[in-house]
């Protein structure tokens, strides 16, 4: 079984981004960038499947600027077998072109299972996995927090609207994984050094996807209004006084 893990380079989750003063977008220059946390979990899961003999090969693919190589090398150091960099040229690195390119790669590389992150923590969109599943006409599961191979298919636990759900899916399939699926390993120095020297295959997004226009564009960004400063109360008596004054807690309006 060949597992493909699409990985995105995003602003580190501990860093607060700033909106450019002219509202034209988000200023990410000089900010710490990392592998999207959900994708790190997906890579870990894929490598575990290979180490358990359930997968034969793990390929990671990242679309973006040349610096995306950083996160591909992180994934290689974690144990991925091969890495592909998709170069978007002047175009966008996500949206329909990415999904189309991934679907071409899946077919070309004989992929049986795609493990995406359930969302990228920059756009918080979570559309890549379901859209890829749609183009391939494969079954999908989102927010996967437990996974097992069973009788040639998958048994997964997902967050549902009411609570945990258990689904059985045949392979091939596309999954969007949650942070809870597993804990990513720490990377050893020798593995990092080895990954630094590994070859990364570079492909042009446009060549794989043709001309796929984005279906929306961001026209401006703003910082949400900050909440007005609150009060610090001294002790429980004062806290109770404040709370008793709230209509929602029974104060008569």
């Amino acid at each position, binding site marked *: 079984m060949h597992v493909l893990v699409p990985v995105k380079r995003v602003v580190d989750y501990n860093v607060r981004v700033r909106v450019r003063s002219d509202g034209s977008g988000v200023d990410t220059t000089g900010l710490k960038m990392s592998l999207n946390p959900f994708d790190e979990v997906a890579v870990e899961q894929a490598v575990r499947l290979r180490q358990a003999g359930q997968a034969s090969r793990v390929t990671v693919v990242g679309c973006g600027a040349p610096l995306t190589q950083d996160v591909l090398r992180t994934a290689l150091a974690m144990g991925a077998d091969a890495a592909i960099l998709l170069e978007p040229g002047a175009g966008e690195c996500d949206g329909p072109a990415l999904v189309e390119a991934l679907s071409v790669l899946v077919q070309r590389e004989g992929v049986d299972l795609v493990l995406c992150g359930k*969302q990228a923590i920059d756009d918080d969109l979570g559309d890549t996995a379901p859209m890829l599943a749609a183009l391939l006409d494969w079954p999908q599961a989102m927010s996967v927090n437990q996974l097992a191979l069973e009788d040639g298919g998958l048994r997964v636990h997902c967050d*549902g609207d009411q609570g945990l759900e258990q689904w059985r*899916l045949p392979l091939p399939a596309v999954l969007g994984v949650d942070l809870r699926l597993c804990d990513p390993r720490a990377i050893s120095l020798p593995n990092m050094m080895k990954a630094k020297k590994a070859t990364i295959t570079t492909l042009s997004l446009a060549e794989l996807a043709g001309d796929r226009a984005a279906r929306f564009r961001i026209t401006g960004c703003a910082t949400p209004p900050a*909440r007005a400063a609150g009060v610090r109360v001294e002790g429980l008596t004062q806290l109770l006084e404040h709370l008793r004054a709230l209509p929602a*807690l029974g104060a008569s309006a």
Partner: protein
Amino acid sequence: MTTLVIAEHDGSQLDPSTLNLLGAALQIGDPVHLLVLGMGCAAVAQAAACLAGVSQVLLADDPQWGTPSAETLALQIVALMPGCDTLLAAHRVLHRGALPRAAARLRAAYLSDVVAIESGHRFVRPLYAGSVLASVETQADKTLLTLRPAGFATAAGTQAACPVVTLVSVGADVRSQLKSRESMDSDRPDLSRARVVVAAGRGVGAREHMALVERLADHLGGAVGASRAAVDAGFAPNAIQVGQTGKTVAPDVYFAFGISGAIQHLAGIKDAGVIVAVNKDPDAPIFSVADVGLVGDLFEALPALTAGLTGQSKTA
């Protein structure tokens, strides 16, 4: 053309959030159709037909809608979209799987977690765990959106019933099989709709201590929430995680006990009326958003609030 809204209901009654979705849909200015998917839910469709502003109700009444897969719902959406420009649905797990799947087939734009509608082509949605609000313009013929119901004013009023059209449901995609589903066996209000939410973080220290949190929630007729760290530590179930990757809540009062206030957590409580924080660390970031903050021990505060605040009925 038309805006189609997926109605929220429990099989016998419309959920109040349907009115928020309808309010949002009416802002676009096109005729609004309500889609009622369910099993034995003709009464829901009748109630939907009487909501002012709805020009048609589409009723798909079929056992498969009891526990649909995202794949099947996507097929139904693809079948319906030729007649509509825009589809609106609540931002929840099923829709977050089905709408993008359908959008890819339709070559439609998909936007998730929309918080404001400026026109049929201009929307506002959060990025970066809510620390940025982006104005987005769609560039496709059709748009599929999930939105946060609590962010939109409810539609009001009733009308003489509009037509209810019964649909033939699409054949189910049976490849994915639901094996089991946990049900929230609690008689507490739903987290995303509760007027009071009492939430706990890693600071509660142990699963047993959640009883203190639950006691206050029940006393106030509220729901229980948790931070990711509390869920990961096994203190609380996944389903009640609040934040960027959990539920979004919009209560009148949100209590955060032993929650540090990471940006990923705050992303889920932006719409809360009053945020009350109890944390023993005076520098905890939660205090920068709290309306009322107490530097103190949650183990003292929880019983004191349960004893000192007036109880509410559970149906609040």
